[in-house]
């Protein structure tokens, strides 16, 4: 079974958590497909602002150094050596030792190299380039690790399905900042694993799990806990799906609402509820 992880950046904590969770379930990853880092766009407006903030000398230096626009990232499969990753996987027993001046464990790059997990970096996650990378990896199940909306051309590649884990109960809370919206609306904190279709969080539901956040005094700690938990649940569901122990439950479109980024003035209420110890008592 070829599992492929699609993510915004291969060198991100989310990927680390997904890889660690999959390893816990003894699931092997066939490959990672990630978005190349966006080039910093230099426009006349930026230059005008920076010149105002700094000096005319900055403007001259900028042109001497950079020209108009930076080049984009690397395309296709890349070697993992020589990259400076930020995050570290816990080291599996009997494998590479910790190095001096570095946290114990393996970097994502080292882990990928050790496990022979190829990493493809693409300019656009909905591009033909991405489709080709997924086809080359002979993807059976595609796991999404915090990506923007994925279009039908990419969703058509996996032979079995695409899975996503969502930080709230579906179908009630679709969209963004849903962990916060759940608390705001007095609902339980939860995660939902669902198949992905071209809509926003509208694919068939495979599994839901509530999370106790009464020990999370802030939004950051609550998000961290839900985030950690969601990847464990995703890995568990992937195993259950492979073993054909999960039945997809289609969503009713009208059953939920789409939520958007929450304004700080409303986050204040969420933070207040968490600080007091948020409990949800409903069944």
């Amino acid at each position: 079974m070829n599992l492929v992880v699609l993510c915004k950046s291969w060198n991100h904590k989310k990927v680390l958590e997904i890889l660690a969770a999959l390893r816990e379930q003894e699931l092997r990853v066939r490959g990672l497909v990630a978005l190349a880092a966006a080039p910093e766009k230099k426009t006349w407006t930026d230059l005008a602002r920076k010149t105002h903030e700094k000096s005319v000398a900055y403007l001259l230096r900028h042109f001497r150094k950079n020209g108009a626009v930076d080049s984009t990232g690397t395309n296709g499969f890349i070697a993992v050596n020589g990259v400076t990753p930020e995050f570290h996987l816990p080291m599996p027993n009997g494998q590479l030792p910790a190095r001096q001046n570095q946290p114990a464990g393996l970097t994502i790059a080292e882990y990928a190299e050790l496990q022979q997990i190829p990493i493809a970096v693409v300019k656009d996650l909905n591009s033909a380039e991405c489709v080709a990378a997924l086809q080359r990896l002979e993807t059976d199940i595609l796991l999404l690790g915090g990506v923007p909306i994925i279009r039908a051309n990419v969703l058509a590649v996996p032979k079995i399905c695409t899975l996503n884990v969502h930080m709230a109960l579906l179908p009630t809370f679709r969209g963004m900042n849903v962990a916060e919206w759940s608390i705001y609306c007095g609902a339980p904190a939860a995660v939902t694993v669902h198949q992905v279709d071209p809509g926003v969080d509208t694919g068939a539901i495979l599994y839901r799990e509530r999370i106790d956040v009464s020990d999370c005094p802030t939004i950051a700690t609550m998000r961290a806990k839900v985030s950690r938990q969601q990847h464990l649940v995703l890995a568990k569901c992937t195993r259950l799906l492979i073993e054909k122990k999960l039945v997809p439950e289609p969503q009713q479109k009208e059953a939920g609402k789409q939520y958007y980024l929450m304004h700080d003035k409303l986050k204040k209420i969420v933070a207040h509820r968490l600080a007091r110890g948020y409990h949800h008592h409903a069944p």
Partner: protein
Amino acid sequence: MIALRSTAKQLRDLIEMRLYWPSHLRIGLQDYFDWRAPVTTLQPNAVHLQAAMDWLCRAQEATGDGGVSARYRLSKNWAASYPETTGYIIPTFFNYADLTQREEYRTRAQRMADWLLAVQHENGAFPGHDVSAQSEPRVFNTGQALLGLLRAFRETGNEIYLQASQRAGEWLTAVQDPDGAWRRFAYYHRPHAYYTAVDWPLLELFAVIPKPAFRETARKHLDWVLAQQQPNGWFDKSGFKDDATPFLHTIAYTISGLLEAGALLEPDRPLENVYMQAAKRASEALLHRFEIRDFMAGQFDRQWKATVTYSCLTGNVQTSFNWLRLYEFSQDARFLNGALKLNDYVKSTQNLTSRNPGIHGGIKGSQPLWGRYIRYSYPNWAAKFFVDALMRENRLLAELYHREGLA
């Protein structure tokens, strides 16, 4: 040829903006270099509110007749008083007087109402434009003046305002077409969905003078507007002239009229009536468009696709107010959330440093200045809707925080 024409237009624009005035040059440069960047660091709402109210007071003083100048134009300074918007600025001033407990605003509102009496036509109608030129009576403008007169009556108990209101209401009833639309004395002599903002004052009038004709006139037009609504929430005929891509300003008028009329017709269960549901459907579409782009465009097409890159600031604050009202009726916090963001955006465009009294505290028609809606100007209705939206936001947040036990 195209390049030449474009250059000529840019030159004309520069001359029109009178960029040789330092205050004009400054805002022109700000918008030219980065109109998406905030002009102002966000301050507490009270600061933005007071600045906008001060601007409105200066707009009233600029004309000397008691009415409120229609706009500050970069090309020609303050315009003459505008009956339509002076009408709906009156409730804003009474509300602000209640909020601040300052009589000064109540006195100003009364002066506005007295001026309205002076410009009302013999037949009860109000003129269609500012009073610098003769204008035929207009349905929409009469409806908005009616809002001010009714509020002046409620605040003062002076029957003269009620009599003027009744005459305005009777004229509106008399000039309606049999199908419920208004074509005679309408803008461009075409029927408009945004005349729901006339139905609402008519229903307010019915609450004070229960003459069935007032309610029936409003209902007939509201039903005509419902027939213009598409399944995706869009209202046909919701523009001034360009119904294919109307301004957010007139879309927001359409929604506000439906909301307020719905609430007046069925105050016990407002969300259950068809007018409120129609308003909610359109508001949901706008909310989605705004949230996914993190920007509110100034014009939309029938698929709710943005057709321009500028923002109509007046429409933004009107929409924000509509969303706040929907939140009040439905407790759907997504509307409150969207309104908070829209208000922040408009606050970030309010100039709080200029020494020019026409710019400081005012709200531009468009962001950037040369957007198609009321270009190069600061209209009084933008400031009025901005004040309304911030006052409503303050009230709702205070209630919410109080319920949560937050300071």
